[in-house]
Structures are given as structure tokens and as C-alpha cells.
């Protein structure tokens, strides 16, 4: 006989074992040697899908509807085949964006909407509460059955008082405590719980073995194998319908509806999301789970019908609830060890579900419901608190307790009216409401936030009206005529025959109307008004998740400025300063930066911070928090479109190419220009050389010619000889002068000239120059006028060079002024910061076109054929070089026929600046 102490001790020992496994798993994870990083553990953890519903409820369902229990497992099997496209994508999106719950996923997909996250959380919590009630009911029932062994007493809840007088309440609170210990010991940005997964996988193994043990016991101990059971059942008239389709099994519509429901449930139940998406270590585990997980489902279902038939035949008068056959059959045969094993198996199934489900829900409640509200309440000043991790854990623990209390209340209020499976199906129908928003969200870019909100809300309301409220009505908590007459007594509003639709069972009926409302609203509203910029951005991130490389997925959509310390401080407030620092250091190492300080607060870091935060407080809140420290520039619609649209990516790429080719073209043009200048310079050099040689040849030719005359005609008279020798000497002098000037110019141009700068008085230079040319002026009978004011400042320059310039200008003036009536004036003046010298003549002047030409080398104005060149053609170029050297400029002003004025200026600044140094 199983006594209460034995059962309680066994239960606690089992829970203790689980806790030890979880502890070990966490420890190994901290050491970096994960025990869950293999596909088998992953597939086993997915089997958290099999709860008390499967363990006890399937048999109960099979006892009334034969094969009708199976679609719940065929659906996931079929769905697993689609995981390659659906689940893999969801996992990748979630990893890229640090999404930790369904609410987060949907909110994030539709523009990080807090409202949507909250709505999804509410649907999930309300929807899953019946499911948790189911587990409580199963534990409570079986507990009371084993306690009353061997009487087979069925539990009768209505006679027990609420809460403290009820064992079930203590079970609920015990589970809450256990869940808190398991799931919320510390906060992790990834929300991963390796120890928990290890424990859940272990539980999956225990419940499978327990169920198979009972199955083998019934099939081969009580009966003589499968054939025997079915043969005997076929002889009982009431059992015959269970062996075929139709009748009790419902119709094909129900069959297909349940298949669809379970396909949605296997992905969108919060606990399935938790183990499949959040706790996934490696995508490859999922691919293996595609067949491993259905295999588990097959294994745990093989014996359902034999146990059901065995139970029905064993307890023919219906005194025993078929939901408890798994336990009561071994008890009836007095194989107490098996009964205890079965009880532990059932406990495994229930606790595994409750723990994972409430952890997943508490994360959602905290991140997507409570925190966004708290953060908005300015009075709480949460955004200024340094460490919020304690608050976060507190909220989650509170949420876990609250969810279990709600589950208990539902169990207490409505649990009696339904069998286990029927309660579970209510929850399945609720989470199926997520399917349009999620599946639409990852394959269709057109879905909008408003569309998702409308769809979810509509589907949820229909679900409440057609399934949840009737479940209250059937339990007597709402007037029963609500069911038979409809709301307000209007026939069309009968909750289970809405608008007169009859012929469907309640689940199919609800599924049809809620999906019609959900998908209809989602699509219609989405299509009515296209997505906004932010929505479009997120849509692309989600829909194209498999095409993008991870690194570029998020940060492209961000522009703005932030500081590393602000981000670190922000993260520290939610994760705790140490964990935040660790996270940043890891990030820095990944980036090849030496330390956190070496990090740049670029878009990528901001995105990383946001996704770390998203793990702790949900993506919508994370965005708000990050925005509070980041001066984000608003992103215009056009810009977003440009950045994210695939077409515009190509466009942007080609634009880049275009820009690059423009740059290349510009560089080519520059090169071509430089080349042209080089060629020009080369040509000028050639010109220069040929001009120089030409200029040198002219005097040489005359020297040679006169020398030959003198040699060939020794009889030349003295006067002739003297004249010719004079020419030779003059030409030689000219040649020397020319060579000197060429050398001089070459030196100046190449920067090798020697300069002897000193402080000089320009007046002296002018006087000396005038004195030097006075003879020449006299010879040409030129009148000279000198205007030199008193008190001019001195300048710093090379006296001899300036002398050279003055001589050149004066001799030019003398040479080109009017024959016979020449006048030359020299004017010295101070203008602001420069000293100006003008040398004016009254000659023929310089035409406009020649004003620059005369400063070129070997360019002499005038008809070189008729006029003998009177200079070397290098004087003015040299003058200009000299003046340039001292920072001044030399130019000519002239009207043809009115004379010309050659002017140069020299800066005084240099002198003023240098004087103190010299002093």
C-alpha cells in the first residue's frame, strides 16, 4: 500500500534529483562544458510538449474517441518537416536580435511595439492558464488517488475549500517555489537556462520510460500482446467504435482542425518557444530533432490505445476516470512499484511543463508587460536607478506565483467540467492565435503593426467568447443559458454556434471563427495601410533573415551618437555592473579591441547593447532605454527605404560603384593634367635650350665672322681693324653676359641661388642704380625724375639682387623711351604693408597681349627681324624671379603709345618681423 509519507518522500526525492541535475547543468555551463549541447538532449527537451495531457489525458481521450487523441502528435510530426524553413528561420532571427520570447518576437517584428508585446503576453498568459490548471488537476487527482489506495476514489474538488484547505493549492505553490529556484536564480541576457534544460530532458526520459513501462505491463502482463487486447475489445460492443474512424472519433474536420492546432502549438506554446528557440545551443540540433522529436512522440503514443482499452475492459462500469488509467491499472493489479513509477512519470510530465511554461511566461510578463509600464511611470525614476536586476528578478518571481495562482483558480472554478485534453485544447486554440502574426511576419513583408494588433485582438476576443466563457458557463460560473440562448438571448450570438454555424465541435468552431477574424483583420488592416519606415525595416530584417549575414542585420538601421560609458552604465543597471562589463569585454575581444575603452560607440555597439538589454527587458523596452542614452537621429522614410530595400541595396551598390568610377575619372583627369603640364614643361625646356643655343650662336657667329675677316685680310687698315675688334669684344661681352644670366636664372629657378639678405634702405639702392645708368641715360639724352619721400622704412632683402632689378628696369626704360625726348621717372612709395617702386618711361608702351609675354624667357617684344635684339631676353624673367623670392610681385601697366610703368612691390612685414630678431 502506498502511504502518504512514501509518496511525499518519493516526490520530493525526485524533485531533489531534478534540482541536482539542474545545478550540475548550470555548473557545467559556467565551466563552458555544456551537457546539453547535443541534439539528443535538445530533442528530449522538446518533449516538454508531452505533459500530463499526454501522460494521463491521451488515454482518457482515447477511451472516449479512439484514435481522436492522435492528431495532437501527428501535427507536430508534420510540422517538424517544415521546421527546416520555419523554425530555423525563427531561431536565426531570434539569435540575431536577442529575442527571448514570443511576445518579444512579435513586438520586435512589427516595429518593436510595446503595445503588441503586451497584447501577446496577455493572450499567452490567459491562454495558457487552463493548460496549467490541467497539470494541477492531473497532479492533484493522481495524488489523491494514490493516497486513497486501494480504494480508487475519484477526487471531488467542489467539497474542498479554496486555497489553504486544498492540497492542490499547496501543490501549486510548491511548483512555484520550485520554478523560482530553477529559473530565476540569476539574470542572464540570453535567458538561457542550461540546467533547466538538462532537468527537462531528464524528465522527458522518465515520463517516456514510465509510460512505456505501464504500456508493456498492460499489453503483455494483463493481456497477451496487442492482438489479444484488440481482439477482446472487438467483442465489447461499446468499444468497437473506438477502433474505427468516425462516430466517437469525431469527423475529418475535427481531425484536420486538431492537426492544425497542434502544428501551431508545437511552435507557439510559450514553453515550446522557450526550449526550441531560446534554449537552442546550435541550429544543427534542430535539424536532427526534426526526426528525433517525432520519434519520441511515436514512442510515447504506441501504448495509449492498449492502456485505454485495457482500462475500459478492466473497469467496465465507468467508476474510474479514464484520465487516470495509467495509474489505476497498476494499482488495481497491486504492482505498487509500477504505480509509483507511473506517478513519478506523471509528476515529471506535469512539473516539466509547469516549470518551463511559467518561466517563459514570467519572462514575457516582466519584459513585455510590467517593465514597459514601470519604465513609463516617470514618478518611479526607474531609468535613473543604478541596478535594476533585483527588481527584474522580483517581478519574474511574482509573475510565476501569480500565474500558478491563476492556474489554480481556473482549476478550482472550471476544472471539473472537462477532461484533461479538452482543457488543453482551449489553450492550444489560444496560442494558435499567434500563428498568423508570426508566420505572416517571417514570410510576408507587408504585415503591419496595426494589422497584427487587430488580428491578434480579434482572434483573442473570439477565443474568449467561443471557448473560455463557455468553459466558465459549463462550470456554473456563468449562467448556463449563456450557452443555450446566446448573449442577450440572441440566437446568433450563441457562443458555440456563432451566427448559426453548427455541426462543428467547440474547438473546431472556435478555430474557424477566431482564425477567420485573426487572419482577416491581420491581412485587411495590413493591406489597407502599408508599413511605416520602422515596420518595413524590421520586416526586412525578419523576412530576409536567412539571407543576411549576422553582423549586418541590425545596426544598419541606426544612426546617431552615443558614448561607450553611457551604454555600459545603461546595461549595468539591468544586468548588474559586473555582468555588463563582462559582456562588453567579450564584445571588445570579439572586435579585436584591447579593452572597453578602446571601443568605438558605433552603430554596431549600440545594436549589441540593445540586443543584450532586449534579453533582460524585452526588445521594445530595450529600444526605449537605449534611445534614452543615444542621441539618435530620426531616420526618414526615404532613407530607410534606401538602406533596406533589396533593390535599393543594389542601387546603392551601383551608386557606390558610380561614385568610385567618378573618383577614378577625376584622378585620371588630374593625372592627364599633370602629364600635360609635364609635357608642356618638357616642351618649354626644349624651347629654352633651342632659344639659348640660338641666342648664343648669334654673338658667336658675329665674333667668328669678324675674326675670319681679320685673319683673311691682314691688309685691313688700322681703323677698320680697330672697329672689327671692338665688335668682337662687344659680342664676347654680350655672350658672357648671356651665359651669366642663363646660369643665374637656372640657379634661381632651381633654388640654388645664393642670397645675401640684409637690412637695406631702398632709397640707397635707387640712388646707386640711377648713378650706374646715368651715363647711359645721358648718351640717350633721357631726362630722369626721381620721387623718393623721406622716412621710408627699411626692408630685408639681397641688396645686389635688388640692384640688379633696378638696373634692369632703368636700362630697359632708357632703351625703350622716346628717341630724343626720353623721360624716365622713378617713384618710391609706401603702401600699407608694402614698398612700391615704379619705373615709368614715355616709350611705345606694351600692348595688352604682350604684358605677360615680356616676362617669359627670351621673349622680346618688337620685330626681331628689323630691330636688333637689344637685350638677352632674360632680364625681366630674372627680375620677376628675384622679386618673387622676396615675397613681392612685378608687373607692367601700359597704354600703347603712352609709355609703360614697370612696378614692383616688396612686403614690409618680413622686415618688421625680422627686425627684433636681428636686433
Amino acid at each position, binding site marked *: 500500500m502506498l502511504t502518504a509519507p512514501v509518496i511525499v518522500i518519493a516526490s520530493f526525492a525526485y524533485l531533489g534529483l531534478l534540482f541536482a541535475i539542474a545545478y550540475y547543468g548550470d555548473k557545467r555551463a559556467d565551466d563552458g562544458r555544456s551537457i546539453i549541447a547535443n541534439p539528443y538532449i535538445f530533442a528530449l527537451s522538446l518533449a516538454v510538449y508531452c505533459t500530463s495531457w499526454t501522460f494521463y489525458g491521451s488515454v482518457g481521450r482515447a477511451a472516449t474517441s479512439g484514435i481522436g487523441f492522435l492528431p495532437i502528435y501527428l501535427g507536430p*510530426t*508534420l510540422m517538424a*518537416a517544415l521546421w*527546416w524553413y520555419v523554425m530555423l528561420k525563427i531561431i536565426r532571427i531570434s539569435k540575431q536580435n536577442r529575442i527571448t520570447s514570443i511576445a518579444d518576437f512579435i513586438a520586435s517584428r512589427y516595429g518593436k511595439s510595446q503595445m503588441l508585446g503586451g497584447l501577446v503576453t496577455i493572450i499567452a498568459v490567459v491562454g495558457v492558464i487552463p493548460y496549467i490548471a490541467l497539470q494541477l488537476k492531473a497532479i492533484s487527482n493522481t495524488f489523491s488517488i494514490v493516497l486513497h489506495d486501494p480504494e480508487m476514489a475519484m477526487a471531488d474538488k467542489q467539497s474542498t475549500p479554496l486555497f489553504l484547505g486544498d492540497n492542490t493549492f499547496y501543490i501549486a505553490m510548491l511548483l512555484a517555489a520550485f520554478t523560482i529556484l530553477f529559473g530565476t536564480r540569476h539574470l542572464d541576457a540570453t535567458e538561457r537556462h542550461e540546467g533547466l534544460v538538462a532537468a527537462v530532458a531528464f524528465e522527458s526520459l522518465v515520463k517516456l520510460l514510465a509510460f512505456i513501462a505501464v504500456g508493456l505491463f498492460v499489453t503483455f502482463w494483463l493481456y497477451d500482446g496487442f*492482438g489479444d487486447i*484488440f481482439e477482446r475489445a472487438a467483442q465489447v460492443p461499446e468499444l468497437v467504435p473506438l477502433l474505427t474512424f*468516425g462516430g466517437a472519433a469525431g469527423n*475529418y474536420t475535427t481531425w484536420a482542425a486538431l492537426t492544425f492546432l497542434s502544428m501551431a502549438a508545437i511552435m507557439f506554446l510559450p514553453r515550446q518557444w522557450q526550449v526550441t528557440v531560446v534554449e537552442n545551443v546550435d541550429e544543427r540540433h534542430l535539424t536532427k530533432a*526534426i*526526426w528525433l522529436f517525432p520519434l519520441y512522440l511515436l514512442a510515447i503514443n504506441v501504448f495509449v490505445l492498449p492502456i485505454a482499452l485495457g482500462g475500459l475492459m478492466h473497469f467496465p462500469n465507468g467508476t474510474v476516470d479514464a484520465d487516470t488509467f495509467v495509474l489505476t491499472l497498476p494499482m488495481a493489479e497491486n504492482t505498487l512499484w509500477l504505480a509509483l513509477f507511473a506517478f513519478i512519470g506523471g509528476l515529471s510530465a506535469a512539473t516539466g511543463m509547469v516549470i518551463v511554461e511559467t518561466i517563459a511566461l514570467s519572462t514575457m510578463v516582466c519584459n513585455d508587460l510590467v517593465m514597459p509600464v514601470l519604465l513609463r511611470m516617470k514618478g518611479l525614476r526607474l531609468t535613473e536607478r543604478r541596478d535594476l536586476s533585483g527588481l527584474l528578478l522580483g517581478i519574474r518571481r511574482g509573475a510565476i506565483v501569480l500565474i500558478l495562482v491563476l492556474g489554480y483558480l481556473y482549476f478550482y472554478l472550471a476544472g471539473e467540467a472537462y477532461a484533461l485534453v479538452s482543457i488543453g485544447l482551449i489553450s492550444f486554440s489560444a496560442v494558435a492565435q499567434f500563428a498568423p502574426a508570426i508566420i505572416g511576419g517571417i514570410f510576408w513583408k507587408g504585415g503591419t503593426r496595426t494589422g497584427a494588433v487587430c488580428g491578434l485582438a480579434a482572434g483573442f476576443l473570439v477565443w474568449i467568447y467561443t471557448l473560455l466563457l463557455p468553459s466558465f458557463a459549463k462550470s456554473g460560473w456563468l449562467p448556463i443559458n449563456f450557452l443555450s440562448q446566446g448573449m442577450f438571448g440572441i440566437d446568433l450570438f450563441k457562443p458555440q454556434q456563432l451566427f448559426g454555424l453548427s455541426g462543428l465541435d467547440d474547438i473546431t468552431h472556435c478555430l474557424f471563427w477566431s482564425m477567420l477574424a485573426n487572419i482577416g483583420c491581420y491581412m485587411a488592416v495590413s493591406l489597407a495601410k502599408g508599413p511605416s519606415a520602422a515596420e518595413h525595416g524590421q520586416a526586412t530584417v525578419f523576412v530576409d533573415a536567412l539571407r543576411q549575414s549576422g553582423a549586418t542585420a541590425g545596426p544598419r538601421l541606426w544612426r546617431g551618437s552615443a558614448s561607450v560609458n553611457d551604454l555600459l552604465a545603461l546595461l549595468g543597471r539591468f544586468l548588474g555592473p559586473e555582468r555588463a562589463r563582462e559582456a562588453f569585454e567579450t564584445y571588445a575581444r570579439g572586435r579585436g579591441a584591447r579593452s572597453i575603452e578602446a571601443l568605438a560607440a558605433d552603430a554596431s555597439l549600440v545594436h549589441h547593447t540593445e540586443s543584450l538589454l532586449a534579453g533582460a527587458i524585452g526588445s521594445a523596452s530595450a529600444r526605449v532605454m537605449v534611445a534614452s542614452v543615444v542621441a539618435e537621429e530620426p531616420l526618414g522614410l526615404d532613407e530607410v527605404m534606401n538602406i533596406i530595400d533589396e533593390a535599393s541595396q543594389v542601387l546603392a551598390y551601383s551608386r557606390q560603384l558610380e561614385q568610385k568610377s567618378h573618383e577614378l575619372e577625376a584622378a585620371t583627369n588630374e593625372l592627364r593634367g599633370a602629364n600635360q603640364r609635364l609635357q608642356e614643361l618638357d616642351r618649354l625646356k626644349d624651347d629654352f635650350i633651342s632659344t639659348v643655343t640660338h641666342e648664343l650662336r648669334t654673338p658667336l657667329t658675329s665674333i667668328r665672322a669678324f675674326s675670319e675677316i681679320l685673319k683673311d685680310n691682314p691688309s685691313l687698315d688700322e681703323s677698320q681693324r680697330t672697329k672689327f675688334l671692338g665688335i668682337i669684344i662687344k659680342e664676347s661681352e654680350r655672350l658672357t653676359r648671356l651665359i651669366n644670366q642663363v646660369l643665374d636664372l637656372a640657379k634661381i629657378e632651381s633654388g640654388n641661388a645664393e642670397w645675401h639678405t640684409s637690412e637695406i634702405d631702398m632709397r640707397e639702392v635707387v640712388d646707386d642704380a640711377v648713378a650706374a645708368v646715368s651715363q647711359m641715360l645721358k648718351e640717350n639724352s633721357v631726362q630722369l625724375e626721381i620721387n623718393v619721400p623721406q622716412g621710408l622704412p627699411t626692408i630685408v632683402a639681397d641688396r645686389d639682387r635688388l640692384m640688379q632689378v633696378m638696373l634692369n628696369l632703368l636700362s630697359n626704360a632708357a632703351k625703350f623711351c622716346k628717341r630724343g625726348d626720353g623721360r624716365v621717372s622713378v617713384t618710391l612709395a609706401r603702401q600699407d604693408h608694402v614698398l612700391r617702386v615704379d619705373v615709368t618711361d614715355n616709350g611705345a608702351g606694351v600692348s595688352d597681349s604682350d604684358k605677360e609675354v615680356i616676362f617669359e624667357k627670351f621673349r622680346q617684344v618688337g620685330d626681331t627681324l628689323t630691330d636688333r635684339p637689344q637685350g638677352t631676353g632674360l632680364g625681366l624673367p630674372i627680375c620677376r624671379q628675384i622679386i618673387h623670392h622676396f615675397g613681392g610681385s612685378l608687373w607692367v601697366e601700359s597704354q600703347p603709345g603712352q609709355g609703360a610703368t614697370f612696378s614692383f612691390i616688396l612686403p614690409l612685414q618680413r622686415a618688421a618681423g625680422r627686425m627684433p630678431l636681428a636686433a
Partner: protein
Amino acid sequence: MTRPSIKGQRLVALFLLGFLLLNYPLLNLFAGSGHVLGVPVLYAYVFAVWALLIGLMALVVEERSD
């Protein structure tokens, strides 16, 4: 996993196959009475299809494409 897309397509094909085999009208062909090796034909059929699907999915997923 060098040719992931072909695997994905094969799995989708298996999904379609399974959906067809396990729903009306094909399922109806096996919905009546009758036994295969002592097991009602409906159960034998559904579990056989189920096992076959899992086997094929395993084949597709585990195939080494290198």
C-alpha cells in the same frame, strides 16, 4: 549541409505527403473495420505512415551531401 535547400524541399514534400496520407480522403480508405496482424487496420495504417514519415525525415536530414 552543402545543399540545404534541396533538403528543405524534400522535407516540405514529406510534409505534403504526410498531410495527404493522414487526412481525408485517403485516411477514409482505412477507417473501417478489419485487422492487420490482429491490429485494427486504422491503427496499423496511421502508425505505419507515421513511422514511415519519421524514417524518411531521418533519411533526408541525415543524408551526407558531401
